[in-house]
C-alpha cells in the first residue's frame, strides 16, 4: 500500500457517527457522575460494601482497567524488540489504548476511598511499608512511561499533521507543541529511533511492575487464597491476556468505522489471535496450578473459599469464566475459525471472562474470612454498576477523541521510504 490518505481522513473530517457516539458516551459518563455525586452525599453506604467485604467493584475495576492496558505498551514494546514487523499498523492504536485505559483505571481507587478529601495525604504522609503506596508509585510511573512512549512514536506523524495545517487554531497549536520541532532531518530521526528503543526496554519492567504490585495489595496479606506467590505472575499474565483481547476488539472497530481495511489485515487478527490463544493456555495452566495447590494442601480456610468457587455460591460465574477465558479461545486453534469476526467474538468473551476472574479473586476470599462473624455476601449496587459503565464509556470516549485527533496507524512507520532498521552498536535501534 502506498496511499496513506485513508489513515489521515478521520483526522481531517469527523465521520457521521462521531457526534452521536460522543454524545451517547457523555450521557453514560454523566450517569456515572451523578452516581458519584450520590456517593459523595451518602458515603460508601450506597455501595454493596460491608464488613468483611471491604473492597468491591472499584478495586475490581482498578485491576481490570490496568489489566486491559497491557495489550498496548507492553505488547508493542516486546514486539518492537523482537523485530516483529507485522506490528507496525497495530502498534499505535494499542499504545493509545494503554494510555486511555490507564487514565481511566488509575483514578479508580479515589472512588473507593472513604475520605477522598484526604487523598493527598498519600503523598504528604505516605508510609512506604504499605503495598498501596508502592501501587501509587508504580502505576503513575507506568502511566508516565506509556504516555511518553506513545508520544515519541507519534512525533513524526504529528509533524506531518502540523505541516499539512489540519484543524483549527487550537488543534494546530496542539500539533505544533507535540511535534516538538520535528523536521524529519536525519539526526532527528535517528534520535527518535534511539529514544524508542530505550523506551521499549524501559517500558517492559515498568509495565510488569505495575500489575505485579497491584497483585501484591491482596497477595501480600495473609487472607486465604490471596496469600500466594503466584498472584503477581497470575495478574500480569491475565493483564496481557485481557489486554490483547481489548486490542483485537479495538482494531476491528477502527478497521470497520474508519475504513482501514487496506492496512489492518486478517493476518494481524490471526497473529494477535494466536498470541491470545497462547495466553489462554498459560492462563488455564496458572488457574489450575493455583486451585490445585489450594485443594491438595487442604488448609481448611482455603478449602472454604475454593469450594465456594468451584461448587458453591460462585460456581456459576466460575465456570462461565472458564468457558470465556479458556474454552472460547481454543476455537482459535482452528485456522478456519481465525476469521476477524470470530476472533473479535472470542475477544469479547475473554474481556468479560477476565472481569469475572477479578471478581472471583477478590470476593469469595472476602466473604469467607478466617473468623466467621456472620454470613456475608456482596452484590454491587446501581451506583457501582454506573461507575463501571461510566469508566468503560470514558475509556471508549478517550479512544474516539484520540482517533479524531491523531492517525490511529503510524504512517511514518509504514512508509517504505522510512529508513530501514539500522543495527547500531546499541542493538536494534529500529523504531
Amino acid at each position: 500500500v502506498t496511499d496513506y490518505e485513508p489513515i489521515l481522513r478521520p483526522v481531517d473530517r469527523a465521520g457521521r457517527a462521531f457526534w452521536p457516539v460522543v454524545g451517547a458516551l457523555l450521557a453514560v459518563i454523566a450517569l456515572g457522575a451523578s452516581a458519584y455525586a450520590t456517593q459523595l452525599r451518602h458515603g460508601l453506604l450506597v455501595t454493596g460494601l460491608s464488613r468483611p467485604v471491604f473492597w468491591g467493584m472499584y478495586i475490581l475495576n482498578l485491576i481490570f482497567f490496568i489489566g486491559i492496558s497491557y495489550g498496548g505498551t507492553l505488547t508493542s514494546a516486546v514486539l518492537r524488540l523482537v523485530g516483529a514487523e507485522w506490528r507496525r499498523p497495530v502498534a499505535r492504536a494499542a499504545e493509545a489504548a494503554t494510555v486511555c485505559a490507564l487514565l481511566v483505571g488509575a483514578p479508580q481507587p479515589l472512588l473507593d476511598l472513604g475520605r477522598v478529601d484526604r487523598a493527598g495525604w498519600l503523598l504528604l504522609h505516605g508510609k512506604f511499608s504499605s503495598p498501596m503506596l508502592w501501587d501509587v508509585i508504580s502505576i503513575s510511573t507506568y502511566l508516565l512511561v506509556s504516555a511518553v512512549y506513545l508520544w515519541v512514536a507519534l512525533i513524526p506523524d504529528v509533524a506531518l499533521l502540523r505541516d499539512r495545517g489540519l484543524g483549527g487554531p487550537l488543534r494546530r497549536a496542539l500539533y505544533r507543541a507535540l511535534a516538538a520541532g520535528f523536521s524529519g532531518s536525519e539526526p532527528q530521526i535517528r534520535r527518535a529511533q534511539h529514544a524508542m528503543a530505550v523506551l521499549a526496554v524501559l517500558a517492559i519492567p515498568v509495565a510488569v511492575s505495575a500489575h505485579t504490585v497491584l497483585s501484591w495489595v491482596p497477595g501480600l496479606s495473609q487472607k486465604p487464597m490471596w496469600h500466594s506467590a503466584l498472584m503477581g505472575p497470575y495478574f500480569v499474565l491475565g493483564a496481557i491476556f485481557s489486554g490483547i483481547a481489548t486490542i483485537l476488539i479495538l482494531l476491528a472497530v477502527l478497521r470497520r468505522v474508519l475504513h482501514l481495511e487496506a492496512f489492518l489485515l486478517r493476518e494481524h487478527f490471526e497473529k494477535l489471535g494466536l498470541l491470545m490463544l497462547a495466553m489462554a493456555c498459560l492462563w488455564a495452566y496458572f488457574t489450575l496450578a493455583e486451585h490445585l495447590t489450594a485443594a491438595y494442601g487442604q488448609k481448611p480456610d482455603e478449602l472454604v473459599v475454593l469450594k465456594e468457587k468451584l461448587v458453591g455460591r460462585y460456581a456459576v460465574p466460575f465456570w462461565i469464566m472458564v468457558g470465556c477465558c479458556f474454552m472460547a479461545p481454543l476455537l482459535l486453534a482452528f485456522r478456519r475459525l481465525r476469521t476477524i469476526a470470530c476472533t473479535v467474538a472470542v475477544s469479547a468473551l475473554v474481556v468479560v471472562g477476565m472481569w469475572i476472574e477479578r471478581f472471583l479473586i477478590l470476593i469469595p476470599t472476602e466473604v469467607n474470612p478466617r473468623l466467621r462473624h456472620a454470613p456475608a455476601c456482596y452484590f454491587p449496587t446501581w451506583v457501582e454498576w454506573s461507575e463501571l459503565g461510566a469508566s468503560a464509556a470514558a475509556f471508549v470516549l478517550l479512544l474516539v477523541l484520540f482517533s479524531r485527533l491523531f492517525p490511529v496507524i503510524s504512517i511514518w512507520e509504514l512508509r517504505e521510504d522510512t529508513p530501514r532498521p539500522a543495527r547500531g552498536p546499541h542493538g536494534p535501534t529500529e523504531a
Partner: protein
Amino acid sequence: MPRWGMTIDLDRCSGCQACVVACKQENNVPFASAEDLERGRGISWMQVLSTVEGEWPNLRARHLPLPCLHCEKAPCTKVCPVDATHLDSEGFVEQNNARCIGTRYCAQNCPYGVRFFNFRTPEFPERLARALSPDVAVRPRGVIEKCTLCAHRVKRAEEQAYLEGRKELRDGEVTTACAAVCPGQAITFGDLDDPQSRVAKLARSPRAFRLLEELGTEPKVFHLRETRFDEGT
C-alpha cells in the same frame, strides 16, 4: 514502660453481652439500625461470637468475647499507606481518625475482623448525644475505628498518678469498660510486663491461648480456654 494487655476467661463468660454495651457507651459507638446490622455495617468494638455445638439434647453453647487483640506484630499497621495506625510505646495499636483516608486495607489485613468502617455519619438520640463520653472523639464517616483497649482510661489514671507523685500505676488501678462491667469478672486488664500483675499471671496459665496463634500476630489479648466440669482449674 508498661505493655498493656488483657485476658478473657472463657470459663467465666456467660455470653451476656454486658461488655458489648459498656464498650459502646464508653467509646461513643453509634447505634446501628437492624438493616445496617443485617448488611454488615454495624460497629461494635467488643463483640461476643456465639456458637451452639452438638445436637439436642447434647448442646453446648460457646461464647468468645472479641475486642481488638492489639497484636505485637499487627498485620493491620504495616499496610496502612498513610500511617494512620501504629503500635505505640505502651503496646496499644492506635488508630488515628484524623489521619485515616478510608482505604480499609487495615481491615482487610486483620485476621480477626475487629476493624470497623464508618459507613454512616454517626448519629445519637438526643439524650445520648448530651451524655457522650468526653474522653473519646466521635469518629466521622469514611474512616476506620476499633477498640483502643480504653487507652483514654489509662491516660486519665496516669495523670492522676502523676498528680499524686507516683511514677507508675498500681496493678488493678485502671481497667477497661468491658472488664469493669463483666458480671463474671472474665476480663482482666493490666501490664503484661509486670510479672506480678494479675493479667500477667493469667496469661501464663496453661489455659491461656491466643487466637489464630499460627499467624504469628502475637496478640496481647489472651483467652483462657474452658475447662470441663471434671477437670480442675
